């Protein structure tokens, strides 16, 4: 009996702490708004939505109840007891905090000085525009009642599940059709892979027609990140060189197009297409020039040096010293977009198509390289550089090639980015860009082309969907990364080999099914 209390109140404790954290950072306001707007509820507070908040609490309470019930033996009484225990713990924690916040507010303490999000209207929301005492009791009451309901709900579904066999059958069927299977077939058959890419192409060509201008823009950003992800995938995923200054090549692409097509600071205005070619060439050349001295280093050292290089480029384009040539902190305005047969690209849709074409070319190119001698050399270098050399592989040459190819992709990304925005400035080229691209590789799965696409959608597309949560994007990022590294360390759509490495402990003799020879 003791254990039941202990386990279930621990569940309640975790939820309580998390909810208090949400209250303190003001996330409750956003959540109540989302829920309130979705359910079309009226509100009596200035910001947020009181009824929305009640529903949010109730949903959380149900969840707590279900979790609490899961800690106990599966009978009606123990389920009810443990879920209520969990709910009670949360209710006490949250209730007390709401009470404290309410009292402090009533005593005219300006909490915003300490916690930016705790403004007076948001405190009014927390106590449901009542007085602190009834507000906190109402909060606690919602949690207790909904968690008890959650416990009963969990028990009810449980007993139903036991009685109904078809559910198990269904689950079995479902797991046979699971994404994992699809992925395995996808990876093992090259023809199917092309079908997959064809499908992706068809979808990406059709979808822009149905999207709003805003979503076309957002998807364009995702696309640019896919492009950069494909580039960094070659450097990090295939050749195994950890580079953190990838934004430098993005910046070089953007600024080349900017300087060559904009009327100021240098009035060249040569038009987009030649400028695009120039940006690719320049980015690749910079990659080689940076690579020559830097690629003698390995691992962490390489990461640090490339990180520094990214910062140097950012500082240079910001600096007053270079501002007559590069525009300084103001950046470059009026960058020309591409024209085809005199028709200029102006809509977000047109840019999205352009970006998709860029991605397809990049995928084609990567695939081609990966399955060639070059790809094998990269694989050997990634696995063991010294041994690769002993196999007759000119490691410096292939590392430079990886660097240059990756840089060229980023150059294209930067060029498209600058032309689409008709502007580029130092703020577009922060370290965060490099980190984001690296993150999308990790989230999607190192060395895997579909992984890059999935990763870019998750990291750049997902925050757009949760636009309301924009403030918490980094929080989501962090949470997502942690959860993912625990649940799927190999990424959402890993390359077959990578998956094998990271799950090698599972089976005694991992065997590579595909690409067998001899």
């Amino acid at each position: 009996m003791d254990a039941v209390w202990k386990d279930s109140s621990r569940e309640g404790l975790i939820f309580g702490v998390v909810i208090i954290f949400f209250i303190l950072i003001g996330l409750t306001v956003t959540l109540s708004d989302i829920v309130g707007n979705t359910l079309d509820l009226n509100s009596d507070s200035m910001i947020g939505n009181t009824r929305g908040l009640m529903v949010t609490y109730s949903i959380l309470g149900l969840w707590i109840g279900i979790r609490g019930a899961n800690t106990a033996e599966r009978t009606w009484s123990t389920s009810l007891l443990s879920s209520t225990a969990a709910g009670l713990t949360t209710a006490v924690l949250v209730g007390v905090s709401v009470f404290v916040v309410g009292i402090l507010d009533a005593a005219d303490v300006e909490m915003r000085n300490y916690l930016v999000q705790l403004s007076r209207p948001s405190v009014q929301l927390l106590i449901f525009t009542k007085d602190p005492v009834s507000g906190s009791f109402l909060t606690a009451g919602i949690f207790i009642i909904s968690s008890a309901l959650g416990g009963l709900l969990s028990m009810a579904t449980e007993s139903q599940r036991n009685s109904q066999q078809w559910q198990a059958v269904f689950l079995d069927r479902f797991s046979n059709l699971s994404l994992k299977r699809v992925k395995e077939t996808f990876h093992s058959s090259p023809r199917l892979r092309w079908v997959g890419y064809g499908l992706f192409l068809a979808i990406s060509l059709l979808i822009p027609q149905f999207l709003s201008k805003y979503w076309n823009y957002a998807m364009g950003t995702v696309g640019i990140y896919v492009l950069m992800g494909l580039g960094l995938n070659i450097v990090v995923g295939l050749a195994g060189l950890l580079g953190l200054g990838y934004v430098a090549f993005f910046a070089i692409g953007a600024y080349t197009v900017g300087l060559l097509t904009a009327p100021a600071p240098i009035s060249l205005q040569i038009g987009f297409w030649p400028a695009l070619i120039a940006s690719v060439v320049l980015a690749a050349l910079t990659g080689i020039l940076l690579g020559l001295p830097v690629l003698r280093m390995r691992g962490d050292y390489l990461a640090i040096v490339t990180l520094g290089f990214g910062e140097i480029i950012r500082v240079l384009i910001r600096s007053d010293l270079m501002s007559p040539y590069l525009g300084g902190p103001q950046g470059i305005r009026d960058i020309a977009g591409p024209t085809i047969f005199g028709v200029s690209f102006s809509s977000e849709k047109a840019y999205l198509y352009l970006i998709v074409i860029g991605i397809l070319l990049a995928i084609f190119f990567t695939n081609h390289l990966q399955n060639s001698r070059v790809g094998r050399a990269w694989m050997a270098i990634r696995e063991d550089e010294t041994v690769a050399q002993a196999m007759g592989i000119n490691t410096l040459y292939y590392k430079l090639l990886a660097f240059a190819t990756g840089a060229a992709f980023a150059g294209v990304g930067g060029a498209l980015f600058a032309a689409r925005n008709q502007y580029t400035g130092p703020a577009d080229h922060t370290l965060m860009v490099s980190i984001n691209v690296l993150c999308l590789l990790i989230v999607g799965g190192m060395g895997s082309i579909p992984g890059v696409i999935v990763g870019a959608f998750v990291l750049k597309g997902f925050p757009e969907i949760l636009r309301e949560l924009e403030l918490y994007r980094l929080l989501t990022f962090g949470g997502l990364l942690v959860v993912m590294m625990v649940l799927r360390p190999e990424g959402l759509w890993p390359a077959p080999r990578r998956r094998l490495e990271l799950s090698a402990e599972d089976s005694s003799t991992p065997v590579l099914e595909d690409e067998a020879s001899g």
Partner: protein
Amino acid sequence: MAMLEVNDIHTFYGNIHALKGISLTVEENEIVTLIGGNGAGKTTTLRTISGLLSPRHGQVKFEGEDISSTPAHELVYRGITMVPEGRGIFSRLSVSENLDMGAYSREDKSKLQDDYDRVFQLFPRLKERRKQVAGTLSGGEQQMLATARALMASPRLLLMDEPSMGLAPILVENVFETIKQINKDGTTILLVEQNATVALSVADRGYVLQTGEIVLKDNADNLKKDEMVRKAYLGID
């Protein structure tokens, strides 16, 4: 003319004078062994010959041509392949992928299948396990794989660094039987070993290294009888 000629090489790690004038020769179709204790400079000598290190003074000649400053990856094309120390396999790739990597330098792909057959004949175990991830092979199998992979480059001179390292005695015997076989099939071998007993049992000639210098050279039978070698390296009083 000797196949490999090393003339008075001096190799440094920073300021540390690791090799103090090593000279040795390897004739075609010989097995030559370099024996010595820890830190004697055996591996350094091999790395200098294979181009992973470059000597500050002295000269390495292969078939009459100076290769002292030729980078390692080019030597593979000239016919020198190394089996690295500690086996140095690509542990995350499969056995057959490892072998493919070994054949990386081959321009003439027509005989590739023959070479697969040859190494699988030498190491039947590898054929059974060719789809397995190399890191999950046993120590002995990993050594077989490292050797097989080197053979895939069809070298004329094979440099082997401590093939007995970390292997059970029964496996050591096995590995050295194979080394003899490879030599019989027409590959010259320069072998670095701590295990002097087995090394001298297969080698034609041997050099004894001590702190970066060669202190003794003779044919294998004489070295086995030598008082100093017996005491220091064979553990016989």
